[in-house]
């Protein structure tokens, strides 16, 4: 019950954060030099043509009025229309979010498996040769920029051993979810890029827990093998889960390089383009969804971490 009310408070804080975020994003786009009319008109337009474009986009109206109009629509699920194409922002954002998730979710799963296994193993065998190899690999992956990993995968799987498509070309009427072969490379690139940091955090946390007196006590009491590993991981997972959720939240909108190289039309790539085109309703819609997703992921991370640590606390209390 206490957990539920805690979650309710967190959700309310999230909603407030999103409102503040929308104001901040709108102000930021106002501060940026130029507007969609300037970008759309290009250099060859006459001043009169430029002014006409500005009026037809509604940019001659005061900023506050435009924001309130937008916010009113957003409250009812209508994120407005794109200034550059006139299409519904809700539709664009929905499609882009589906594409991003189609890549990020398999990537997250891979990170969980790779970083979870390797990190735990290295932490439990801290100082061993395996630990050194795993830790060094983790460090290398964490340090390698996304484009390097993506390019290496492209070279490996599309040129030297051409078994996977180089870019994601999804036929009309299908979605990325139906084409695992198109998702494989971008998801792997994201997973490799993201697992280094998570792996190292989990390893450190496991190694630290394993060095605690109670771990030695457990060993003395005959805890061995999987049973011992489980008790250590249960205690070490809290901080690692939170680190994982922060990394995941960043992945949803921050995968611009991978999305670009593999032609996955996702949220991050769309946001970059929308900012360049000064397409304020689209920037607003994308930021809002990215913000909401990030806050949800962080919330899920916090709740999971709390659930993981709760039993220990209860044990401590009963002792």
């Amino acid at each position, binding site marked *: 019950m206490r957990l539920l009310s805690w979650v309710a408070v967190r959700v309310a804080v999230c909603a407030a954060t999103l409102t503040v975020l929308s104001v901040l994003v709108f102000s930021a786009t106002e501060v*940026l*030099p*130029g*507007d969609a009319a*300037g*970008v*759309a*008109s*290009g*250099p*060859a*337009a*006459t001043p009169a*043509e*430029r002014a*006409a*474009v500005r009026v*037809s986009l509604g940019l001659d109206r005061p900023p506050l009025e435009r924001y309130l109009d937008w916010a009113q629509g957003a409250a009812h699920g209508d994120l407005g229309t*794109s200034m*550059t*194409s*006139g*299409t519904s922002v809700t539709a664009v954002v929905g*499609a*882009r979010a589906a594409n991003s998730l189609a890549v990020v979710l398999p990537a997250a799963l891979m990170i969980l498996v790779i970083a979870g296994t390797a990190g735990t193993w290295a932490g439990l065998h801290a100082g061993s040769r395996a630990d050194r190899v795993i830790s060094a690999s983790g460090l290398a992956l964490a340090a390698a*920029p*996304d*484009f*390097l990993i*993506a*390019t290496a995968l*492209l*070279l490996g799987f*599309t*040129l030297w051993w*051409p078994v996977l*498509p*180089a*870019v994601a*070309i*999804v*036929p*009309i*009427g299908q979605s990325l979810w139906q084409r695992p072969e198109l998702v494989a490379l971008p998801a792997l690139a994201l997973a490799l890029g993201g697992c280094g940091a998570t792996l190292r955090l989990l390893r450190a946390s496991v190694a630290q827990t394993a060095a605690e007196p109670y771990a030695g006590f457990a060993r003395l009491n005959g805890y061995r093998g999987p049973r011992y590993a489980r008790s250590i991981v249960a205690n070490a997972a809290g901080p690692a889960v939170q680190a994982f959720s922060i990394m995941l939240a960043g992945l949803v909108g921050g995968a*611009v*390089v991978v999305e*670009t*190289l*593999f*032609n996955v*039309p996702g949220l*991050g*790539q769309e946001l*970059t*383009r929308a*900012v*360049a*085109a*000064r*397409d304020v309703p689209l920037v607003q819609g994308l930021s809002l969804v990215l913000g909401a997703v990030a806050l949800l992921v962080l919330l899920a991370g916090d709740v999971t971490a709390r659930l993981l640590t709760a039993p220990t606390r209860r044990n401590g209390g009963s002792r």
Partner: protein
Amino acid sequence: MVATRSRRLGAGIAAALAVTMAAGCGSGSSESGAAQGASTGGTLRAAFAGGSTETLNYLQGPTALDYVRARLVHAPLCELDADAEDGVAYGVVSDIQVSKNLTQYTLTVRDGVKFTDGSALTSKDVLYSLQAPTLLKGLPFTQLVARGFDLDQATTPDGSTVVLPALSPIADGRDLICQSMLAIKAGTTEFTTGTPSSGPFTIGAFEAGRSTTLRRNPDYYGQAPTLDAIELVSIADGTARVNALRQGQVDYISGITPAQAQTLDGVEGATVTTSELPYASYLQFTMNTAAEPFDDERVREAFKLAVDRQKILQNVYYGRAFIGNDVPGLGFAHYDDDLGQRTYDPERARKLLQEAGAEDVQVELTAGPELAGMVETATLIVEDLKAIGVRATLKEVAAGELYADYEAYAALPFRAGYTPPASFEPNWAPGVFPDVDALVATARSATSADERLDASHQAQKLLWERGNQLGVMFVPNISAASDGVSGVRELQFPDLARATVSE
């Protein structure tokens, strides 16, 4: 900002690796030379930058893909064609006559052209097509006809004649009418997959930012296309387009950078093509004559002499561009080829700066990634200027930022910019050099062709001597195709209507 930069760096490294690949193990290409011969039917898969902003409304379509698609779906009224008698190739408009005093243009509509809904194309449709940019709030680049003609006073005396009164006498009205105007049915207000059209292809399916499927229009009035279908695919990133071509996921890619094209050189099964003149964008660096030190024409000349254009051509464009002579319109009929090519003369540049008392003047050049090689060229120009003692710096702005605030852009003292392929006179922006403005007016309105050409050349000479544009390069569009593809016309935008692909 960081994302943009790392992306560019990423593309660079990917390109570099691909170069190594191509040199080291040429067998990496999965494409084998397609069998020559059979070239009827088939589907061409062509990739362009595209994006979620794509729209079927070509009047508001901001991407090149929107116009490429529209050009396949809607027949052109007429097209610029430097080799043709009137400088234009006729489409659904079969002839354009100009009155002696250059104030009235009479368009004849081709007989037997039908829209996909079965209705005949008449003069009413042609007039509506010309008025549509104004009526449907088209982007400024579509407003060219409205700048020269009084479209409200235009009439259609019969089903095959349109009479257009000019706002003032102009001789180059054909250029305006034929630059980018497509035929649409009178009353069209929205563009969907079902909108009646009269071009060589019809739209089967369309999804913005993903792809368009086009099918051959069996009732097309002109030369029947060979292809059964075309699939236009959106791939936003140039390196990704190159990768898609190399792997055989697409047959044709457009709009790649010279560096990306370089990675395809020597790759078996792929050929790189650049658009021919006059279809090259004019890359220019404008010196604001209202600001110091550019109010002194000696400084402007010094800057023009200080730049090593050959080095830019080789190092930025790998030879895939045309050196400019500080005058727009290279390749168009009125371009003055007799002006001597500006040489690279840092010594004389230094001397001119001394005379002007501007030896160690400070300038900031603003540039952004709006055209392939713009920032790289700006970087080399800044280096060349430093070499003659100018305290030059480069201000690089993010993608989309350069023109976003046009008033601020126009006020910059030294700025990069580009204009799409266009002839000099109709696109001249007056206001800076009154004597050039007067000559351009004569070049557009004098009744004799010789008089017009002479005025145009005089204007170009003045610009060459005292002008405020450092016009270093004309940049073509670079495309690449796998071996089985031919017949793509590299015009202002690639025209795929007559393409063939052998299976």
